[in-house]
């Protein structure tokens, strides 16, 4: 309870900070919504010409793209520092968080808000609304699937970026796996053979951020819910474990850091 209050206090401060530059905030939010619409136009053109990819049509793409965008937006807004954790670790900026009487990982990842994520978050709901699958119970599943997909995504970012404890600055690697996750997440899962699917559920869990949540939103099954729950809990558990193991190795110089 105490940590939840703490989280809300951080999020409130982040929002107030973003609102200092209101025009920039709104430009980024609406710019991102427009950006996503334009990107999705590719799939509309593709499916207009080729109709379906092994049973996967444009409506399925609306749901997949939507839930992935919302999950991405949610992590960007509430845990924006997950994208920069590698830099925080390798530049010795964890010192600040270690000196505070709060959980280090939670405090670190929640300390930044990426304004454009608000646009991603809302775009996802619009995309789902346009899919033709919109129902009240579907919307409830959308919210649940988004939360679980966001958990997998945040855990994946923490896990990969925590490797900086061992290997130092890894911005190229982090960008590579982030792009792979997002790229594979928005492509129809039916494209991939069983070996590729195994990779998309484990090493780069893009299926747990796009295809599986989309399947769960379209139709409730215990199997997809189980996959999502297991994926979220397992990845989060491993991410926290790796971060804690890495933290034991953490060392920093005497640089003076200012957190703003």
């Amino acid at each position: 309870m105490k940590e939840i209050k703490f989280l809300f206090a951080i999020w409130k401060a982040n929002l107030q900070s973003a609102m200092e530059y209101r025009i920039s905030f709104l430009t980024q939010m609406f710019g991102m919504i427009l950006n996503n619409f334009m990107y999705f136009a590719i799939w509309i053109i593709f499916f207009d010409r080729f109709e379906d990819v092994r049973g996967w049509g444009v409506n399925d793409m609306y749901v997949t793209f939507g839930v992935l965008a919302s999950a991405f937006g949610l992590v960007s807004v509430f845990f924006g520092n997950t994208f920069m954790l590698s830099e925080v670790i390798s530049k010795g900026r964890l010192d600040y968080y270690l000196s505070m009487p709060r959980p280090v990982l939670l405090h670190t990842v929640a300390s930044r808000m990426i304004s454009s994520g608000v646009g991603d978050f809302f775009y996802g709901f619009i995309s789902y609304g346009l899919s033709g699958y919109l129902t009240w119970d579907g919307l409830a599943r959308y919210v649940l699937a988004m939360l679980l997909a966001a958990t997998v995504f945040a855990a994946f970012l923490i896990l990969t970026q925590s490797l900086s404890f061992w290997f130092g600055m890894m911005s190229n690697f982090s960008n590579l796996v982030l792009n792979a996750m997002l790229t594979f997440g928005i492509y129809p899962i039916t494209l991939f053979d069983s070996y590729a699917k195994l990779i998309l559920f484990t090493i780069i869990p893009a299926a747990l951020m796009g295809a599986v949540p989309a399947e769960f939103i379209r139709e409730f099954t215990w199997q997809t819910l189980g996959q999502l729950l297991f994926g979220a809990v397992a990845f989060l558990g491993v991410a926290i474990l790796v971060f804690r193991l890495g933290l034991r190795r953490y060392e920093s110089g005497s640089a003076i850091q200012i957190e703003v």
Partner: protein
Amino acid sequence: MKTFAKYWSIFQITLINSLAYPGELVGRSLMIIPFMWIFYQLWKVTYGAAGAEVIGGLTLRDTMWYLMLAETIELGRPPLARTMSENVKDGSIAYILNKPYDFLLYQFSTSMGETIFRAIVNALFGSLTVWFLVGAPAQPEGFIIALPAIIGAWTLHFCINAMIGLSAFVVEDVSAFTWIYQKLSFVLGGMLIPLDFYPDWLQVIAKSLPFASAIYGPSRLFVTPSVELFVNVMSLQAMWILVLSLLLVAAYRSGLKQLTVNGG
């Protein structure tokens, strides 16, 4: 001649500088490998489902080599607009503006210097991946024929990116504009789907725009080279470079009057 030598030196310095961190250069370029692999999965299934060897004049092999060059052009270009925006935000623009060189030509020289090795390494990884997946390009000589169009494409990218960067003189943060430009390149430039697969009405519009001159033109020339296509691509590209350069110079002159330097 002396003026040209100055910008040639700036280009050379940036070119050598871009090799200072080879690990970073290679690391950044690895991204093209998963992209090419996923494109292959998509188009293999699509060609199979369509039951056609050739779609829009392109075989699966042509499509993959087309996409390789399109990605190389896109991934090779440096984030000029973002850099210019950062320069305005942190005030370092003041140090660039008061040097004895033309601001736009300086940016062009550094931009091209940063592009060359990025593009070469991307092309290397992309080609190896595509070669492994579908074999050698049908007409390898297409690369030599497309080379002037590739350089023209980067010049076009520069004109548009610099205009976006200049908007930082007024709005400071240009990220929304860069996202939108990137998506226009994706959709109307034919970066993810060759424009030949589009509906006819959209093809006519898209092929006449600068985005297509920067991506589709050189990539299509690479896979299906011909004298007629070369003339078409180069003349359209030259026209857009001329128009956008004039617009860029006008935007720069007007932007200078509105620039507020924050610090430095």
